[in-house]
């Protein structure tokens, strides 16, 4: 497993995948810098800046990035005929699939860390006097990351199945764009997997309300875990049987 992980690192090290990781945190940081906070709101500056930065990130960029990264970790195999070489090596298909998935979520975690770094940078530049609310920030960012896992699982399955780079992108866009409408819907939002990163990232920051949009956290947990298991297992089983 570890040996295969290193082999993947070698392939991805010299690829533009690392730039993708910076895009959303950089944009969000610009939003954060552009925000004005009235002096009387100074106490809540961190939370407000975080909400400002996390909203576009969680709503669009993070789900889309999940699609891009999943397609990217499969791209070199599709382009260079690497699947048949790789799978004729003494490495199990299960290992290949799990390692690819770990790379996707690893890079997503890196993105979340960069977003946090961007937020801290904004706060430092603007000289926020309030203490950094670490517990809320970390739990929201980790929550958003966990909420991406079902999406990553589905996108990886699609990326493995289709050799085109554009097809998984289209799938990602088709499912992500309805977020703009659904995330405000009390009825459907909590049940839509693509809305989960946004909900998870913002729920902690708006602690005043219990749950999100009146939905208890248990529901969200079930949606995330349930869709993750369904998507991951179908992709995993499909890859085991795929003809190379």
């Amino acid at each position: 497993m570890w040996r295969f992980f290193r082999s993947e690192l070698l392939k991805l090290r010299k690829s533009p995948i690392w730039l993708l990781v910076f895009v959303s945190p950089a944009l969000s940081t610009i939003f954060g810098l552009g925000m004005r906070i009235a002096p009387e709101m100074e106490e809540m500056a961190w939370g407000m800046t975080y909400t400002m930065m996390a909203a576009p990130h969680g709503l669009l960029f993070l789900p889309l990035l999940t699609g891009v990264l999943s397609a990217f970790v499969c791209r070199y195999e599709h382009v260079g005929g690497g699947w048949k070489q790789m799978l004729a090596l003494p490495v199990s298909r299960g290992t290949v699939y799990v390692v690819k998935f770990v790379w996707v979520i690893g890079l997503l975690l890196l993105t979340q860390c960069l977003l946090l770094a961007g937020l801290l940078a904004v706060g430092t530049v603007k000289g926020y006097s309030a203490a950094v609310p670490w517990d809320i920030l970390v739990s929201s960012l980790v929550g958003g990351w966990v909420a991406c896992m079902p999406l990553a699982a589905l996108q990886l399955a699609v990326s493995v199945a289709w050799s085109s780079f554009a097809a998984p992108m289209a799938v990602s866009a088709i499912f992500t764009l309805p977020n703009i409408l659904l995330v405000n819907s009390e009825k459907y939002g909590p049940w839509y997997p693509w809305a989960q990163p946004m909900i998870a990232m913002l729920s902690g920051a708006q602690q005043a309300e219990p749950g999100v949009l009146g939905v208890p956290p248990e529901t969200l947990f079930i949606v995330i875990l349930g869709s993750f298991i369904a998507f991951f297992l179908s992709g995993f089983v499909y890859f085991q049987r795929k003809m190379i």
Partner: protein
Amino acid sequence: MSEAVIETNQLTKKLGNKMAVDRLDLRIGQGEIYGFLGPNGAGKTTTIRMLLGLIRPTRGTVRIFGRDLQKDRLSVLRRVGSLVEYPSYYGHLTAYENLEAVRCILDVPRSRIDEVLSVVRLTKEAKRPVKGFSLGMKQRLGIATALLGSPELLILDEPTNGLDPSGILEMRELIKSMPKQLGMTVLVSSHLLSEVEQMATQVGIIAQGKLIFQDSIEALRQHSGSRIRISVDQGEAAWKMLLASGIQAEWELTDANRLLLPHESDEQLARLVKLLVHNDISVYRVEEEKRSLEDMFLELTGGGDSL
């Protein structure tokens, strides 16, 4: 025959409604160079993909090194090197990095990379990104990758496809040297009889998914009924002389000074040439008249339904 390295039992793959591979019983002995011959679309690549576990057989079993491939896939593949169809590569990486990516998985010493690069003579190009390589160089890199794990069995699917004549020659010499130097067994597929003939010790012919011939290269030559053509200055005298030593030669229709002999062993042919020369007959040419693969397929498949 020596111990079997590859043995398939009624190996079958159905793709849609078509029997891509139909009840194949391959047997490849230790240290052999097995030429796997057949026209395009006959099922060669499908068979090779099954031998490597890339696709699952519809029916039948594959045993490699005496082990069931389904059950012991990883330990079997550790001892197999392969190159399937066009070469696989990561274009944005250098040749060295491509090999390193595979080396990580195989867990062999780093020095193997330099060794295999020198075997395929890519040492000088090792630091260049592979996307700038010619097809021949990519093919050689593919061979290097296949050799990286010091395999006991090398499976090469159409390794000379797209190579120029010097590349083909080089590849052939490389393949021929493997069993001698390293004790490897080699399975090499091709759609060219001439190519297989020049390197294989065993031949299997597949047409429409069925194995229609499997034996030594010598047996194939006998079977194919290739003939020897001798051009001389005195056709009639030579014909009589051959007849006197028990060889029924035929006249070639267009030229009475050309004789056609049935296929002879090397020693017998040498004796006949000596006989002619000693009797002051000038021998201009001694050539083998080969029949094309198509002819042979027609014969082996009983005519009509071949190719």
